[in-house]
């Protein structure tokens, strides 16, 4: 059986060709009151559809909607939650990209589902399964300021309940694959017990979908194999060549399904196919190869669109080579 391919989340919203820049242009027009909000949403849908088609055309097995509607990793969610205000720009981990820092000013509440419509839209555009990416509550809390809750724990738990609600609604809508992005755990490993408490809340009663937690911006030393006890079916890690995670994973058998980020999406340098095939060969000793997904290590938005496409092509090429090797 072949390893499946997927994207970890975001895809570049624009490219260098004029016809790939309509979203950027539409935002400019919207800012100048030359375009209505409805028309802007329409353009977001069009670009989302193009990205889905692009993933499919390049052989990706499990699609995402490319997070085209997301302004930054937190804002799309928090700006739809009552209780949050947005503050100044903050650098997102060690990147040269920024996010508006959420500030919690009152009890957090959502009035209507945030991600279901996006899932249904994406599902309607492809016959392949669509994975939905959700911002992880632990990371949202770590990257936000809490002015309301007396205890930080209560703030995280309320966020966990909100994300749980979203996941439940996604399951009801038929979503089979849900991913929670939790980069912040790797820089706050001391909070691992709290992280377990958070995921008990997030995953309660979720029985229909396969749940993944994706970790990047660091390594899993000191929290592995402990994280194998998390109540999800799959864990995703940065497993590019030479990454410390390789050494850590060698220490204990992976008892969960693996999503392996083997391609570097923060550098334009193309990996050699032979090197990637060798990495993929090494995955066999870490986790069940039949259940392993191949992907990249960070959002593809860190690359220009043309380079992102080249990396996707390489990913699917490697997966198909691996399949060939498996058959022989």
């Amino acid at each position, binding site marked *: 059986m072949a390893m499946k391919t997927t994207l970890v989340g975001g895809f*570049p*919203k*624009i*490219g*260098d060709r004029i016809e790939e820049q309509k979203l*950027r242009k539409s*935002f*400019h027009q919207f*800012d100048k009151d030359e375009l209505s909000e409805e028309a802007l949403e329409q353009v977001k849908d069009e670009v989302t559809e193009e990205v889905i088609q692009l993933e499919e055309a390049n052989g990706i097995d499990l699609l995402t909607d490319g997070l085209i509607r997301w*302004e*930054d990793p937190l804002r799309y969610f928090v700006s739809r939650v009552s209780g949050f205000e947005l503050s*100044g*720009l*903050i*650098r997102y*981990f*060690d*990147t*040269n*990209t*920024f*996010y508006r820092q959420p500030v919690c000013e009152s009890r957090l509440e959502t009035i209507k589902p945030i991600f279901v419509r996006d899932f249904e839209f994406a599902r309607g555009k492809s016959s392949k399964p669509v994975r939905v990416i959700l911002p992880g509550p632990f990371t949202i809390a770590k990257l936000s300021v809490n002015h309301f809750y007396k205890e930080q724990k209560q703030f995280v738990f309320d966020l966990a309940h909100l994300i749980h609600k979203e996941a439940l609604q996604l399951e009801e809508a038929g979503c089979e694959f849900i991913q929670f992005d939790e980069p912040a755990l790797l820089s706050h490993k001391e909070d691992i017990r709290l992280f377990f408490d958070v995921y008990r809340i997030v995953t309660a009663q979720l029985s229909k979908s396969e749940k993944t937690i994706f970790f990047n911006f660091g390594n899993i030393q000191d929290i592995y194999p402990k994280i194998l006890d998390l109540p999800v079916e799959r864990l995703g890690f940065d497993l590019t060549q030479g990454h410390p995670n390789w050494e850590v994973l060698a220490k204990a058998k992976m008892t969960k399904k693996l999503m392996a980020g083997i391609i570097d999406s923060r*550098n*334009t*340098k193309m990996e050699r196919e032979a090197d990637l095939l060798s990495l993929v060969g090494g995955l066999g000793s870490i986790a069940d190869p039949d259940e392993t997904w191949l992907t990249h290590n960070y959002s593809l*938005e*860190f*690359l*220009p*669109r*043309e*380079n992102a496409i080249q990396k996707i092509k390489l990913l699917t090429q490697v997966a198909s080579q691996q399949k060939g090797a498996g058959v022989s």
Partner: protein
Amino acid sequence: MILETTTVGSFPKPEYLTKSRFQFSKQQISREELLRLEQQATKEWVEFQEEIGIDILVDGEMYRGDMVTYFAENFKGFEISGLVRSYGNRYYRKPVAVAEIERLNPVTVEWYQFTQALTKKPVKGMLTGPYTIMDWSFDEFYPSRRDFCLRLAEVIREEARDLEAAGAQFIQIDEPAVSVRPEELDLAIEAMGIVTNGLKAKTLTHICYGNFEKIYPKMLEIPVDQIDLELSNAEYDLLDLFKRHPFTREIGLGVVDVHSHRLESKEEVKKRIRKAASLIPLKQIYVSPDCGLKTRSVEEAKAKLRVMMEATLEVREEFGSEGA
């Protein structure tokens, strides 16, 4: 004088220049015509800085797009990538190292000379640091980040020496990226040492938008005379760190937020200066905006600079005899 004032580097481009840069990219106007307009805009900004009484001037970077890409475009060994998003609807092109980096000619010296000839006040030579150019570029050539960074340090050193030889009394080497990877701070310090070693000009670096808690007080080891910091954006939380460990260098004190449309009140700015003055000796404090002002409109940038100057003058009065 106490509380000398300066700015971090970039100013917004006037509309006629933005339009001309677009026309130039479409080959609708000549390089000479673009240069004429860049010089005109530079003159206008120098006049404005003199008018409001800023002490140490900048050229405003009317001829630069992005602070890293500008240098990459002028160094051999770099190519320029497609568009990458930084935040919101803002995109930029990243350099890609594809061969050994070399400087064939001085890059900023002519602009320094042009601007300095317009004023009797000192004009800063403005460079981007090796660590930041490395961190904000793609690398398809060097085997490691360290190799890439140290090569860039040698190239930037050549530029700094040429600026000094051209008369620059202040050379600013911006390193906004050093605040995000504490584990690489030693590399950034080593690279800055290569750039500033032997320079007689006053050297400065600008650092912003990062996790200062993790690099302070170690960042005081960056071998420059003055460290300019973004402080307003984080509501001056950073100053609490200085209570625990004194800030031993000169500080460029960011007093207005460059990413907010909101105009600070004079009282707010005065309060920020006073707060810093309670922790850092007055003679070590230089007043500036948080960062380059190029993302604001010309009007917003001018208004923020005016408030900065008015507040500084009043605080100078307050501290008058103490600072003399």
